[in-house]
């Protein structure tokens, strides 16, 4: 099981630092990471990721420059590109695919794209090897979860984690540390979803302390660490410092 799925904001602290961060992540043994494409209107993000996106945009981390910075990088975990839809639509599927080709990106997590809204675009990306990560929120009924998992199907056990996993949103609201996340409903939800599907699950939103990460692992799922990590990196910690304990912490 993948023990941790970290989130980094592309271009924060800088695009020049990105190859080094990815190499460091790979050296830590990480199988996959989420890489955020900074957006002007991140409606699903809390203050930490909003500010990180603003910093990155101010330093020139446009979608195009981020994808160009990723081209040719091999020393990297598999990348799940975390983004809002509009920048992708403006590139268009053809151009996006040619930009993604030489990068370690393996899947897309498009926060504001429910299944069924851009059918052709999504199908074109999936058939080229870039599936959309299914998101399951606390408000998602099990019936809807079943539908989401079938609209965004599991490519099967031979595919890497990045292309197989479903993202379980641990609580209502936006990304960020904020108040602690109540893990009781999360345990219930993960149990229910495991009954629906064989695919790996990642759980994120409001998780950062060692105890929460261990609790998610104990459920057989991969914890996601985002805002807390972005904040620590902005404060000058290295990726290894921020993640070493979190990678080994166990229940």
């Amino acid at each position, binding site marked *: 099981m993948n023990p941790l799925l970290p989130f980094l904001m592309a271009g924060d602290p800088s695009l020049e630092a990105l190859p080094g961060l990815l190499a460091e992540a790979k050296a830590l043994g990480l199988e996959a990471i989420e890489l955020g494409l900074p957006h002007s209107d991140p409606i699903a993000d809390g203050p930490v990721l909003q500010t990180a996106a603003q910093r990155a945009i101010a330093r020139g981390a446009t979608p195009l420059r981020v994808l160009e910075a990723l081209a040719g990088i091999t020393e990297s975990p598999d990348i799940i590109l975390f983004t809002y839809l509009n920048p992708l639509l403006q590139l268009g599927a053809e151009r996006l695919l040619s930009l993604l080709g030489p990068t370690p990106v393996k899947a897309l997590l498009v926060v504001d794209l429910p*299944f069924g809204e851009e059918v052709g675009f999504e199908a074109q990306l999936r058939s080229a090897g870039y599936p959309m990560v299914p998101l399951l*929120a606390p408000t998602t009924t099990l019936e809807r979860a079943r539908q989401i998992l079938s609209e965004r199907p599991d490519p099967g056990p031979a595919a890497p984690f990045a292309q197989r996993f479903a993202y379980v949103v641990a609580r209502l609201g936006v990304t960020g540390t904020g108040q602690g996340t109540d893990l009781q409903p999360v345990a219930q939800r993960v149990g229910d979803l495991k009954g629906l599907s064989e695919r790996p699950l990642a759980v994120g939103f409001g998780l950062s302390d060692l105890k929460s990460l261990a609790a998610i692992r104990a459920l057989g799922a991969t914890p996601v660490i985002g805002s807390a990590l972005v904040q620590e990196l902005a404060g000058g910690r290295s990726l290894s410092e921020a993640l070493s304990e979190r990678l080994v912490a166990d229940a």
Partner: protein
Amino acid sequence: MTTGFSLPSRFGAQFLGGCYAPETLMQPLLDLEAAFQAALSDPAFQTELKAELRHFVGRPTPLTPAPRLAAKLGLKALFLKREDLTHTGAHKINNALAQAILARRMGKAEIIAETGAGQHGVATAAACARLGLSCTVYMGVTDMARQAPNVARMRLFGTTVVPVEAGQGTLKEAVNEALRAWAGRCDKAHYILGSALGPHPFPTLVRSFQTVIGEEARAQAMEQSGSLPEVVLACAGGGSNGLGLLVPFLDDNLRRVAVEAGGHGQALGEHAARLDGGRMGVLHGCKTLLLQDEHGHTAETASISAGLDYPALGPELAALALDGKVEVRRASDEDALFGARLLCESEGILPALESSHALALLSALAAEGAATVLLGLSGRGDKDLSTYQSRLGI
């Protein structure tokens, strides 16, 4: 493939609109659509809404002939649909009140709303006070400064006004923050969106609660002058007022015109004119004409009018414009100020800066040969007094 909605979520030949929402909000949006449909077919809802619109809002609003202004502009006749005379002073109350009743039916005791000019915020705050719902309104700090009287009104009605510091501190940022807040409280709260935008079903919901404007105006025009005007004219930010007035005239053989904010220049960032300046994109849950840069980041906007200062045209109005059913024009800040002054001096009516953009277009319409015009006066201008004072030197 079914997305689970039963009403059409797309508009026009280019399928604008849709529901581009984070997954957390999908079930609340599905529930909202179901509740909306149930309410529409429930006579009890219709009866309550009609009674509240009459006794609380003050509907029907008058259709006022404006003969002195018409003569000055070279028009044969001009009629003003007086949404400025509704309780709280703008058309926004039609939708805010209806959605508040809907929220109560859904068992939601908390209301979240965004506001630009503050008119939707004030309307929502008033509706919530009347229905006993708690209310939180998100408002950009720039708008709070330029529409200070409306902030005070909301607070008097017991609403919490949350300042939004991000970006330009205008309507776009307020919507961002309201959507985030709703994602956190969607189990208890209903989000009363004020413009005909956002994810499905909001554009349809808002339009259907605003078409009372055009339905009344059409019947009043027939009753008062025995015929329909040659042009029906309204200002358009997201499109709640534009659609509200224009949609009931869609089957008529006349010109339907919406006016956007031309701001103070032609370059991106100097206006909020989406039809010429925008490209197809997705913002706040819908696909529509959007002012954006080449990277798909939302562009900055500018307008003297907080209510029109928004980077996206509502999807249904954009679709009607692209399909040739509504003409979309623009009026600059200066033109709007001129239009406001003309109405004040000719007819003794102080218009909101938003409505002044429609007034600004009248002379152009007269020059194009229009003789009879019906104009939607979306709101009153008391909230804009400080801008009028400083810009007009009075």
